[in-house]
């Protein structure tokens, strides 16, 4: 079963595929520069407490993404 959830709803250490970026050109471009595009496989590393940033790993890159932006990154996870 595949499920589409936002990055913030993922569990730590879960793998998933980016399927949708809800945001403008700027957000898409800056994510692209860090290697995160539609179709990339990512792993959620951790989530800070109380709506803090999410840490994501893609390849050998780790990126910290603020909670608001992370909510607009939609991931497909295998359940």
């Amino acid at each position, binding site marked *: 079963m595949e499920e589409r959830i936002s990055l913030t709803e993922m569990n730590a250490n879960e793998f998933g595929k980016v399927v949708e970026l809800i945001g403008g050109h700027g957000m898409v471009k800056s994510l692209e*520069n*860090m290697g995160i595009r539609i179709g990339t496989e990512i792993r959620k*590393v951790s989530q800070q407490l*109380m709506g*803090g*940033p999410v*840490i994501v790993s893609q390849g*050998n890159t780790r*990126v*910290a993404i603020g909670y608001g932006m992370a909510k607009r990154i939609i991931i497909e996870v295998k359940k």
Partner: protein
Amino acid sequence: MIKTILLMGNPNVGKSVVFSRLTGVKVITSNYPGTTVEFTRGIMHIDHEDVEVIDVPGTYTLEPTSKAEEVAVKMLDETFTKEKYENVVINIIDATNLERNLSLTLQLIKRRIPVIAALNLWDETKHTGVKIDIVKLEQILKIPCAPTCAVTGEGIKQLIDRVKDVNIYVNINVKISDFDYDEKEKWHCIGDIITEVQKVTHRHHTFLEKVGDLSVNPIGGIPIALGVLFITFQVIRFIGEWLIGNVGEPIFENLWAPLMLKVSGLLGSKGVVHDIIIGKLVEGEIDFGESFGILTTGLFVPFAAVLPYVFAFYLVLSLLEDFGYLPRLAVLVDNVMHKLGVHGFAIIPFMLGLGCNVPGALSTRVMETRRERFIATTLMAIAVPCMAQIAMVVGLIGKHGAKGLGIVFGTLFIVWIVLGILMNKVMKGHAPELFMEIPPYRLPYIGALLKKVWMRIVWFIREAVPWVLFGVFLVNMLYTLRIIEFLGKIVQPIVSGILGLPVEAVGALVIGFLRKDVAVGMLAPLHLTLKQLIIASVVLTMYFPCAATFAVLIKEFGIKDMLKSTLIMICSTLLVAGLLNLIL
């Protein structure tokens, strides 16, 4: 002949380590005109000729999304105009992140300029399970590609050989890659290249990676952060105290003092000139804390009392920086920092501000909005004492035990939090979100680290020492001309009434506008009580930034916002110091 080599690449790819491998000791750091974005240049010898090497600010793309990236693109444009084609770009690539890094490489190639790719961090590809076929990559991109490991120096010689190859042909016909792609299909194209040249095998996480992930996990990260900060301050204290006790003080007491006594004798042991140069003798001897002459206290304060701590601070900070800890700290504190109206990254200006508020204030430029910069800078100017001041306060209050120091720094910490929350509530808008790469932990390259510490120390001496000397000179002039006495009478109701300080402390408050360490030093001869020392230390930190920081604040924010900031400073100082006076 090549005139200039630009080092370009993504942030965190070890660019500055390559830079320090290529260049000699003579490096200059300067601001790009009209900005506070810094870049470094140095000289490299190729075939007995001097070639300029420029370490361009890190950038992910040639379509700039930030100030630093704009500067990077401008520097590229300026280096490769129609008249100047005898230059070359060394594109430093993180070999463990080839796909992401190739985006910039392709954009550089598309400019039709000579590009050499250095696949740095090559040794890390082995234990990250990445295998890159360099020959194939060269064939596809049609540019020279060299694997390097700048930290150990491997591959640097071969990289220089590749530069020499370009150098020979540069005037005749340097081969410029004609590799082409469609900008819209860029990531597709990169994907195709990656499939051709790179194989990724499964591997286990390394120890450093596990620690890396643990330190951004709230359960592991917070204890780690507290531990790191605790050890940091212990190490700074240990190194600082050791240097003062074993190097600074012996040199001044045993070598400098006898010499100064002779000079004092030559000057007749008293008089205006004597007092400005040597200061007042205490029981016929020179007291470096209390004499207050330019050549006695004026030199002792910056070199023997402050420099050891500044050195220790920058050594530890640079170590944390190069190891890759600071971005993780930024992530951990992001939440708390948002309550203060800034995002997690602001922890870096605050940390730098602990060294000296000037680079701290300048580094707020990395923040995106003016609101954030205003809050961060004001908070720093009010509640973050610089190392020069900390060193003097520790020297002065530390004698009475740790409790006094605890009250001073505890108060400043509370002020920092409360004032931040208030400003965040009152000012319109909110802090933008955190978004940044977290580089893996890496063992620092000692050569580059020491070079950085050295540059920071030189900067401190150049910026601070003249101000200290001028401050000491001014103190003597103001006393001789009785201006301090006059001012003392005017502000006595505030100083004695609200702050509970003796009128003599006015001199220190006046000099505090100029230089905090000198001002704290001026409290020494007054023999204040512990309570008065605590209040004076807090007031000196909060009421106004030193002259150098003030100048930066005006330049950064303009007069109007500076006045706003000053008003906040004065009000909160009176409030906090008044409260302390009542409670203690």
